[in-house]
């Protein structure tokens, strides 16, 4: 049964991808891309990757669609369909596809337990994690502890995106006049006329925030962790901004404060590593944090590090949303 559903969702993903790129109305294309992400998340879930499914749904289907919409409201929403220059890329791409298709014959099959990747490093993780780290969620254990250095790099990537968007959008556009915040608010508070959206939306915001908290702190026991939690928090604020007006969400979560929180999150992560170093151990060696009981040290280390991740992701995504949504006021 699952197998049939598996093939079904895979085929749907392929079809939706084609729909996405062939729509010439960009708003429609970004909605399709949201559906695409959601189907991808379903696929990931069927393939037993629950953490990834959660993150892809929150980030791809949620945050990403809002950002596209925000950007599209500031640019054109119809694509000019051009003729020509399509044959050569099409041929090149099809040729590459045929070559790679032949290569797939030598892949290990999906689900095959004898594949090389299930023989080598993974069994060690499965066997040794209860011994060293004692956290039920293996993915979090690997993410935050065994391969914590990668995750640190990733936090810095998202931080860079945040300061990059602020930096790029901090240049004033050449425009006749810019709209003030309250003007903008009056212009777009049209959603106030939609009573159902307004009431239900506002009811949802605290529930989303609560769920975000659950995902953040329960990430050791169930799918979750800092990234999905951060995306969920940001999604709640974005919902508020959409319902009440972006000027209000920028007022509630000011950019300067968000920048400092994002920097704080990164510093928490690197700071934990430095604390471990100052205590005489390797960088990011959480055993240093509680020498008498290393497992507890790992627990607290992962807790703090995931908190730093969640903080940075939340702050950065809110910063990016506010920057794009409030562009008219620059």
């Amino acid at each position, binding site marked *: 049964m699952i197998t049939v559903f598996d093939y079904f969702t895979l085929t749907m993903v392929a079809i939706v991808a084609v729909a996405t790129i062939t729509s010439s109305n960009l708003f429609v294309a970004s909605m399709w891309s949201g559906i695409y992400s959601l189907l991808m998340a379903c696929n990931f879930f069927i393939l037993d990757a629950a953490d990834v499914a959660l993150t892809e749904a929150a980030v791809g289907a949620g945050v990403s669609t809002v950002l596209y919409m925000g950007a599209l409201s500031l640019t054109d929403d119809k694509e000019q369909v051009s003729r020509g220059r399509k044959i050569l890329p099409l041929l090149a791409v099809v040729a590459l596809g045929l070559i790679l298709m032949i290569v797939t014959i030598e892949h*290990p099959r999906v689900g095959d337990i004898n594949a090389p990747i299930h023989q*080598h490093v993974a069994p060690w993780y499965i066997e040794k994690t209860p011994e060293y780290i004692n956290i039920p969620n293996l993915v979090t254990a690997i993410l935050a502890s065994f391969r914590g250095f990668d995750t640190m*790099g990733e936090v810095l990537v998202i931080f860079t995106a945040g300061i990059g968007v602020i930096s790029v959008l*901090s240049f004033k556009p050449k425009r006749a006049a810019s709209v003030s915040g309250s003007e903008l608010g009056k212009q777009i508070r049209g959603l106030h006329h939609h009573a159902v959206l307004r009431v239900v939306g506002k009811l949802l915001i605290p529930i989303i925030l609560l769920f975000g908290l659950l995902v953040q702190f329960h990430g050791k026991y169930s799918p979750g962790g800092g990234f999905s939690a951060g995306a969920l928090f940001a999604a709640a604020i974005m919902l508020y901004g959409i319902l009440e007006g972006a000027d209000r969400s920028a007022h509630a979560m000011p950019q300067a404060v968000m920048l*400092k929180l994002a920097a704080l999150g*990164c510093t928490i992560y690197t700071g934990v590593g430095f604390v471990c170093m100052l205590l005489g151990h390797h960088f990011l060696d959480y055993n240093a944090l509680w020498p008498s009981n290393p497992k507890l040290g790992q627990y607290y280390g992962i807790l703090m590090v995931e908190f730093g991740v969640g903080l940075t992701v939340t702050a950065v995504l809110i910063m990016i949303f506010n920057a794009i949504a409030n562009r008219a006021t620059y």
Partner: protein
Amino acid sequence: MMSLYDQLPILVITLPLLAAPVVAVLPGRGKLPWLFATIASALTFLIAISLACRVMENGTIPYLLGNWEAPYGIVLSIGPLSVLMAIVISGASLAGLFVSLGGMDKEVPPPHQPLLYACWLLVMAGLIGIVTTGDAFNVFVFMEVSSLASYVMVANGPNRQALPASFKYLVTGTFGATFYLIGVGYLYMMTGTLNMADLSARLADVADTMPVLIAGGFLMLGLGMKGALFPMHAWMPNAYQFAPSPVAAFFAACSTKVPLFVMVRVLYEIVGHHLGSYGELLSGMMMTLSVIAFIVGSLIAIYSEDLKRVLGYSSVAQIGYMVLGICLGTSAGLTAASIHMFNHALMKAALFAAVAAVVVRTGSSKIEDLAGIGKKMPLTMLGFALAGLSLIGVPLTAGFISKWYLIKAILEIGPLGIFLTILILLSSLMAVVYIWKVIEVAYFKPTKIEIPDARTEAPVSILIVLWILVLANFWFGIDPEFVLSLARSEAVDVLGVSK
């Protein structure tokens, strides 16, 4: 208990990473962000030098992150070439920052500078992270750290054309990184590990399977896109032309060399031995592309009208030389490529520093606007001319050492080598042409743009950096022992006795 000395390998990466968020929240007035960034770069530079001395004595330094052993955790693996590259990167950062002291305010207004300098530190940290790590996926993560920060820095350029240039850079860079990731994915699929040394060991069992070959192809393709190897070089001259000049100085000196470094690691340590007959094919293809790169790159440089663009295409040519050295597959070739990675940084940083000075004073980097600058800015143009000599490869300069070792390596491969040598000399002649073009306009044409400022010579900070770099060019041209020993020991480490 570990001492500070033991922690240096990780500090060289994490010090700038710790500093970057702090710099981002500093206020935009005054020189505080610049100061923080410069102190962080200087410390990193000193750490890199101390690591270099350690590597020369003891060989490759490993470092276990989180105290987990490979392949279960991530390990750093700092070898001779790693540490040479780390010196280049942190040195280029330091040089660029001193050029910024005089040259940045004109191109990027001070309120935008804290975020810019934060991105600067992130680029430096990311690049050093790439060259010191021993884990294939970690390379991807740090590659994205440095790349994203680079896109932001290019987009801060004063001209509106910086924006499409940055977008093109973003698209090409993301493609390159994703191809790299696909390559790593295929390798992982066939071996189950991500650690480079472990991959090398396990690939022996699955050597001739198709996914491994395709992995090698994707890895090279991705790294070629990132490293601006012809024909995927189109983003680079644009990005360098429109980025703020000090930023261009920093990038030109180091950021395209790091993907080439990863190419060396991939070809020599991971995949190269296991490609079989396809290895010859790959090597041949890359040699052809690198030759086209240095011929075509030099040619386009001759016809370009903007000084930064000329230098950008000249870099395309120089990357061609480096890739030629790498894909020869011999110890001599690798040594030559490594030496050139270092020397090219010295040359290009000096050249771009001079350009930054000119832009500060005249506001333009078009060649025709440089008319008569030689009299107004004598020290700057003399520095440019001397660095240009190094680019051409005149004896007593660093450029000559690079070309000498490259030609020596090429002649080892037989009759084809003689043909390649002729092509290299031809491209050196073309370098003479485009450098002379600039010199001629600067010294022999009547002045076109009047410099309003009373002090017409370049800002002192830029002059100091420029002349330190120019003198370094001559120093390393006369006594290349330091660079040579690191390059040679890398070749020995990686290739064993011979190949």
